[in-house]
């Protein structure tokens, strides 16, 4: 299989990488090692670490940071941006629809079963329209590239996509370590993201809120692996980082406990999952949420971002219908392509997948983080047969996709610069406007030949540049 190299076309350096190429070629090896150590020390001091679930070991692990940036030229980015915004609009239109009249189901374009029997579908919010009709306010769309002009959407993240703190910190650290690079290249900034996020949240304050809205970030607490990101964002946005126990419901509003007494909260950017939001409405044993929160939400006393129930739009089974949503709600042709997907509950698809397992990638419908998946071409015969048995036991739980030729980007490894596979997660903000900072999180599979970029599976991160005109 041949892979699109982001930097080289044969031996020729692609235009956006021209200056970088010079930088790399003149960099002495010992200087590179020194800088790499400096970057690591900076990350550790700032406190960006993450916990890997169920692996034991160092609880304060660092995500490996690669100093070689990934670069887009302005025109490439504009095209991507249009596609991402289009997709974000369609996803929110879909959510409005399925918690309302469900025209798309009535029209027979999406099977009712996939919507209403979906675990993420919240009956508790049927008929509740959040401010501006926005359900998902931060959408992380995972993209991969296979050719110069060929991008595919791997998945949509409509609930609480994480990783944006890496986008910001990667840039911060690159600027600190290599100011010269930024003077020589004209690189679009990303550090307006926290302000944009705050504005987005304020723009969806409930109608009952008369003054400037009070926004908070709701975290499960400091034991959560993404706690660093929660506190980082709260700090940059200038909003309080609260836990469930800091909030309480009184009458038709939500308040936080402050040293000056109760203070009303208008918008909650929650980083906890639906089932934990309100023990009176969802899981009664949840200690993370706020009793009575959903009643206040339903009566328009508080906004919750993303809205409860938004997860029904980013499920891997619903994913296959997103291009259909674009046509149905927007009357446009989708600008971003889906990866061809076989859904194993269909007989034809099932047969095809079972016959071609060694060539395919198979994923659990509700899985995430690179767990519970089979990468056929990278697996042994035993692994494939073991996975086949799991599929046979519950075909409806799986989808399959062709193994994509993910593009590679030069990456620093022990021997020097070598191509490694990358993906891209831009963060799209939806409020009164739809906005996107020029950049995103580039994840890189550090193991040679690996196609899995997840940090829990040995992935690293890179700074992502969009060059200005």
């Amino acid at each position, binding site marked *: 299989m041949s892979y699109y190299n982001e930097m080289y076309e044969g031996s020729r350096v692609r235009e956006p990488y021209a200056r970088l190429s010079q930088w790399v070629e003149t960099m002495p090896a010992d200087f590179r090692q020194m800088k790499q150590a400096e970057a690591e020390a900076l990350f550790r*001091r700032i*406190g960006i670490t993450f916990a890997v679930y169920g692996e034991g070991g160092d609880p304060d692990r660092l995500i490996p940071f690669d100093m070689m940036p990934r670069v887009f030229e302005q025109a490439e980015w504009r095209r991507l941006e249009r596609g991402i915004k289009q997709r974000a609009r369609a996803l929110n239109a879909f959510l409005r629809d399925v918690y309302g009249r469900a025209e798309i189901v009535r029209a027979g374009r999406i099977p009712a079963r996939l919507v209403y029997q979906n675990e993420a579908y919240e009956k508790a919010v049927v008929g509740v329209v959040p401010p501006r009709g926005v359900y998902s306010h931060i959408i992380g769309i995972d993209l991969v590239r296979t050719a110069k002009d060929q991008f595919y959407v791997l998945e949509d993240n409509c609930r609480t996509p994480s990783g944006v703190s890496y986008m910001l910190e990667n840039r911060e650290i690159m600027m600190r370590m290599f100011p010269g690079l930024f003077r020589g290249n004209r690189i679009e900034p990303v550090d307006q993201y926290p302000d944009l996020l705050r504005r987005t949240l304020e723009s969806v304050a409930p109608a009952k809120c008369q003054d400037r809205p009070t926004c908070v970030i709701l975290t499960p607490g*400091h034991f959560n692996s993404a706690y660093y990101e929660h*506190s980082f964002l*709260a*700090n940059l946005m200038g909003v*309080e*980082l*609260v*836990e469930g*126990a*800091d909030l*309480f419901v*009184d009458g038709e509003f939500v*308040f*936080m*406990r*402050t*040293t*000056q*007494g*109760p203070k009303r909260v208008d918008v909650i950017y929650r980083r906890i999952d639906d089932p934990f939001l309100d023990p009176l409405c969802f899981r009664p044993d949840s200690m993370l949420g706020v009793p009575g929160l959903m009643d206040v939400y339903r009566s328009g006393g508080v906004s919750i971002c993303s809205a409860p129930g938004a997860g029904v739009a980013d499920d891997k089974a619903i994913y296959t219908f997103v291009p259909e949503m674009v046509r149905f709600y927007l009357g446009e042709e989708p600008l971003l392509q889906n990866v061809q997907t076989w859904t194993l509950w269909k007989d034809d698809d099932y047969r095809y997948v079972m016959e071609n397992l060694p060539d395919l990638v198979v994923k659990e419908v509700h899985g995430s983080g690179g767990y519970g998946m089979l990468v056929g071409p990278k697996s042994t015969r035993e692994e494939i047969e073991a996975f086949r048995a799991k599929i046979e036991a519950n075909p409806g739980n799986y989808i399959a996709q062709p193994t994509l030729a993910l593009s590679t980007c030069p990456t620093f490894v022990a021997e020097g610069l070598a191509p490694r596979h990358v993906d891209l997660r831009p963060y799209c903000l939806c409020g009164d406007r739809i906005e996107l900072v020029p950049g995103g999180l580039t994840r890189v599979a550090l193991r040679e030949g690996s196609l899995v970029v997840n940090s829990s599976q040995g992935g690293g991160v890179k700074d992502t540049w969009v060059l200005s005109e």
Partner: protein
Amino acid sequence: MLSRTAANLFWMGRHLERADTAARLLDVGQRITLLPNTASGYQNEWNSLLQASGTATLFAKKYGEVSQENIEEFIFFDRQNPSSVLSCIEKAREAGRIVRTALTSQVWDALNVTYQDLRKLEKTPRGKLDTASLTDFTTSHTSTVRGAINATQLRNDGWHFMNLGYGLERADATARLLDVKYYVLLPRIEFVGSGLDTYQWQVILRALSAHRAYHWAYGGDITAGRVADFLILNGESPRSLITSLYEAVWNLEGIAKRYGETVPTTARDKAREVLGRLQAHDIDMIFDEGLHEFLTWFIGEIGTISTLVHEDYLLGGS
């Protein structure tokens, strides 16, 4: 400010000060046992020190026998002892981690380094550690954190809550140390004014790093009356009851001024009242009243102020 944030800052201050006290306690005990003294050997002294920190029962249950190693382990490293240096530093660091964004990076660094170094110390074979180095470790690290707080933190309500924690804890600790000396270590009246008595006062002064300061302030001999005056009523003495309480009042006033009239001020009012009563005393009155009785009253009042701080600010008005 979130009540939880304020509570974490308040308890961060208290636990740092408490770690400091634990280390000083160890030092007092160590020095007293070096004295060729009393009828019943050094066991009693240690026991009374443990009583001062309210952990004597726990120690007896877990270790039984009083030995230098057991005591060191218990006061310094034992996680089951909530007042051990390690327990306090761990709690302070955890509180700091939860409110990371309310701390400057210098304060966090100092706090985190203290914790990391302590973890290393914990793994050192005990035979290679001596009491003096453990005490020095603690006082120098807690001073670094304190210095970082004073040099870099914004002078906002969070700063007041941290310093309020320090102030109340310190007032409480000095009162308890004094009480140990007078009531427990030296129960028999004929010892008062004896050589043993004077030596023990010296030890207390040393433990509070106030030995030289005392001489600057009073000159001449160490007497019970002067030392008590120094540690209770002297406004220049950094760990005296009056100084510590004054700092608490000052911080409570800072908070009250910021928050205005809608927020209750029962803690400030109570602290002012206690300070007023302290100022109305002279040392003879205290001795006439009975030092132990006086200290018991004072420790109770500090407890009340701490409770009122919680009611006024840390419960969030619900």
